[in-house]
């Protein structure tokens, strides 16, 4: 496959929907109001395990405007689902505190809310276990981990190599549960009519929601339409249909009226997924020159009792550094907790915090500069699969970052730079993320007026998908972006993969290019443009199935400078630089925003984010944005992202790698490493709270 530069790919086009978003005209899911609309407010279980014996709905039904209280006794029946999270109100069982047990439907939001609060629920509670521990007897080896990776990997004799290594690092790191918290809460407007079900849904993938809901309600997918024109962020939490969208459809069916349902922010901490907490042991063995002889990375994580979700925490370790002896493992325990799911760079983000912190510890143990240590352990090919990398420019990122950041003058001594009452330090860490691609379909149409319309059920959750697909289509059609309209966000369009796994542009772009190429061929064959226009379609299933075997990953290097207040222990990120190698960058403006956005969330992970489990009641305690802290404007100072040119012919027609997630990978390690450099204190447990820095 060859990639060719075209005039519009690579230019900083403003977001095509920018004006709609800044004027308030862009409509998100909840902002559609069909006639006869009713409002739904869900009710959550207040026990962590047991059964709902009965719900007294009498008081609720007397509230003016209340239409129905739906719970498992009167809920419409759903077909069985592979994901038990979707079997909403189908049984009396409660698998975690916060699981949906009922929904109140009323004429107004206020009446529905009052009804939901007035329900009296009789539970048969059972003892629960919500605590993740490294010695939990329930830990088991899942069959595979998320994204289909093998659970464990082993090469050589890592135990013997560790034993023999002159330099060793053996440390345990932990990361807390974290909640995605997109600004737009999950929301659905559901309407049933003679044709079936229409959903305005806040989702990362309309095609997947259509397929799932059709199966649950035993209908052909053609009878379900899912519209997601604008989505207020997702970060993985809207990547697959979960309980709320099912509840909305079920409520609308029960009351035979259109229903609106938005998940209140507090409820998002139980029903919309989260990043599993992890406990990770990393062992690195090296010779005195810092060359790794052994890498062992073992992760422990949690999932719920009703759905296995095993995050691929140690998979980045499989490709990062050369070492002949290696082992990676994942062990999971099923607890009475909400079901974890995808959160921006699931696996890579927590896994690389541990690995890249351990690499910093190894650099210190060997007395080698941490940039140099990484360069020294650069592999020639994928260290586990043996496959060649389609392109790998980690070293270039490290070198360019070191140059821009002013790394060369760094004194490695920890705790040695006091400015006023602030200790200053710098740190580095590597980033990586796989370059996935998934089959999608698209159509391209030459309209009678000479304009083009490109259709694909892609989603723009803020990534700039609509904009970059416009650029890609313009180049493929040999026209300009202002003559191309890209229609996305609707399951009635040609089916496409979700906005997830950083694979949107690669997957959708391939389908768009192929459809546009097919259209150009038709145009050249047909001579005169027929009055109805011309249309062509493409399906990339075969092309992607037949792609050559390569290890495809984006890489990056992040450099952080922190200041730690000697008296309060407060850590602040003064400077953050990311240098990335992620194939061709389609739009430098939106790409920079993606990288910086990921790094900002990484900064937030490093310093603030932590969902605290209450063992007594089996609940995440901090369930709002006042208690679950995400970075605010004042927390983010000097942050910059740049990239190096990468021409990789083994990816896709555009030559792109995904960029939505790599920005969050490695940030927390770079910051923790900088905090160590500033203070001499090694923080192995995120977040880097001030109480951990006060000695």
């Amino acid at each position, binding site marked *: 496959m060859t990639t060719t530069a075209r005039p519009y790919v690579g230019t900083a086009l403003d977001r095509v929907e920018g004006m709609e978003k800044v004027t308030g005209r862009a409509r998100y899911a909840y902002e559609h109001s069909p006639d006869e609309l009713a409002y739904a407010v869900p009710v959550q279980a207040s026990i962590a395990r047991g059964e709902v014996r009965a719900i007294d709905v009498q008081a609720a039904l007397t509230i003016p405007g209340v239409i129905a209280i739906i719970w498992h006794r009167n809920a419409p029946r759903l077909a069985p689902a592979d994901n038990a999270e979707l079997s909403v109100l189908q049984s009396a069982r409660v698998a975690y505190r916060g699981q949906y047990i009922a929904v109140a439907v009323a004429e107004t939001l206020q009446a529905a809310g009052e009804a939901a609060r007035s329900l009296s629920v009789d539970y048969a509670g059972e003892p629960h276990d919500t605590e993740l521990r490294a010695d939990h007897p329930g830990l088991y080896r899942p069959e595979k981990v998320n994204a289909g990776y093998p659970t464990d990997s082993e090469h050589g004799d890592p135990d013997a190599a560790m034993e023999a290594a002159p330099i060793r690092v053996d440390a345990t790191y932990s990361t807390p549960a974290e909640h995605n918290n997109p600004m737009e809460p999950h929301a659905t407007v559901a309407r049933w009519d003679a044709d079936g079900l229409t959903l305005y849904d806040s989702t990362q993938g309309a095609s997947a929601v259509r397929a799932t809901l059709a199966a649950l309600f035993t209908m052909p997918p053609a009878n379900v339409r899912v519209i997601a024109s604008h989505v207020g962020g997702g970060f993985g939490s809207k990547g697959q249909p979960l309980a709320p969208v099912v509840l909305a459809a079920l409520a609308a069916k029960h009351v035979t009226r259109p229903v609106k349902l938005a998940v209140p922010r507090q409820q998002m901490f139980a029903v919309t997924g989260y990043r599993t907490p992890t406990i990770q042991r990393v062992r690195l063995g090296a010779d005195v020159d810092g060359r790794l002889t052994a890498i062992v990375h073992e992760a422990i994580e949690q999932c719920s009792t009703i759905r296995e979700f095993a995050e691929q925490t140690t998979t980045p370790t499989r490709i990062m550094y050369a070492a002949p002896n290696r082992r990676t493992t994942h062990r999971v325990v099923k607890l009475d907790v909400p079901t974890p799911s995808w959160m921006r760079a699931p696996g890579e983000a927590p896994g690389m915090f541990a690995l890249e912190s351990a690499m910093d510890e190894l650099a210190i143990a060997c007395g080698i500069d941490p940039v140099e240590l990484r360069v020294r352990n650069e592999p020639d090919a994928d260290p586990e699969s043996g496959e060649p990398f389609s392109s790998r420019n980690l070293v270039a990122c490290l070198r360019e970052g070191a140059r821009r950041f002013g790394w060369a003058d760094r004194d490695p001594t920890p705790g040695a730079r006091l400015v006023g009452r602030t200790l200053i330090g710098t740190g580095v860490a590597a980033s990586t993320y796989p370059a996935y691609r998934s089959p999608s379909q698209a159509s391209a149409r030459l309209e009678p007026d000479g304009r083009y319309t490109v259709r694909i059920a892609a989603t723009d959750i803020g990534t700039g998908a609509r904009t970059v697909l416009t650029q890609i289509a313009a180049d493929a059609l040999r026209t300009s972006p202002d003559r191309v309209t890209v229609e996305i966000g609707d399951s009635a369009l040609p089916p496409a993969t979700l906005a997830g796994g950083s694979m949107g542009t690669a997957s959708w772009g391939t389908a768009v290019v192929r459809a546009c190429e097919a259209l150009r061929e038709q145009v050249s064959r047909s001579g005169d443009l027929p009055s109805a226009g011309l249309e062509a379609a493409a399906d990339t299933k075969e092309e992607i199935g037949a792609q050559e075997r390569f290890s495809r990953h984006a890489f990056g290097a992040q450099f952080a400078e922190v200041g730690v207040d000697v008296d309060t222990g407060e850590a602040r990120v003064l400077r953050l630089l990311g240098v990335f190698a992620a194939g061709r960058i389609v739009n430098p403006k939106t790409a920079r925003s993606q990288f910086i956005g990921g790094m900002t969330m990484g900064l937030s992970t490093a310093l603030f984010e932590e969902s605290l489990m209450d063992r007594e009641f089996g609940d995440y305690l901090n369930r709002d*944005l006042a208690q679950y802290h995400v*970075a605010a*404007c004042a927390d983010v100072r000097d942050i910059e992202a740049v990239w190096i040119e990468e021409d990789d012919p083994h990816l896709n027609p555009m030559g792109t790698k995904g960029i939505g997630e790599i920005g969050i990978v490695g940030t927390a390690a770079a910051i923790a490493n900088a905090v160590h450099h500033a203070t001499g204190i090694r923080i192995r447990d995120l977040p880097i709270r001030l109480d951990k820095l006060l000695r």
Partner: protein
Amino acid sequence: MTDMLLSINGDEYPVVVDTRETLLDTLRERLDLTGAKKGCDHGQCGACTVLVDGRRVKSCLTLTVTLDDREITTVEGLADGDRPHPLQAAFIAHDAFQCGYCTPGQLCSAVGMLAEAAAGWPSVVTEDVCAEPVLDEEEIRERMSGNLCRCGAYVNIVAAIGEVAR
């Protein structure tokens, strides 16, 4: 339920509202003015920020029945016809948003913030509270910290507002 006449973006809207109803729900659910967003409904995220008599308020914490005789401005009212407000244009130019869900609140907040600074109001990072505030990056970051952005567009938001403030 209460009968009211609301003044929004220069237009008058007769409405019948639930006395428990917030301005945010009135705008979004009764008047189809869906620019103001509901992110938390608890005054913690800022997505619902609108201007009441020129001052920024969180519409999710404001009961509609308290707004008799008040002038409400939402993001729909910032542009001058087809000409975007300078902040709206700057947000596009600096890519100061991604998903766009916090954007209406950021914009209304920025309009209110610029007015506060012009009126001489200091912030917690203002060194000389008696002097005219200078809206450097630190001041803008501090004054805009009531509006969360999960996509992480803060640096671009600060750049966009900085351009307009100068």
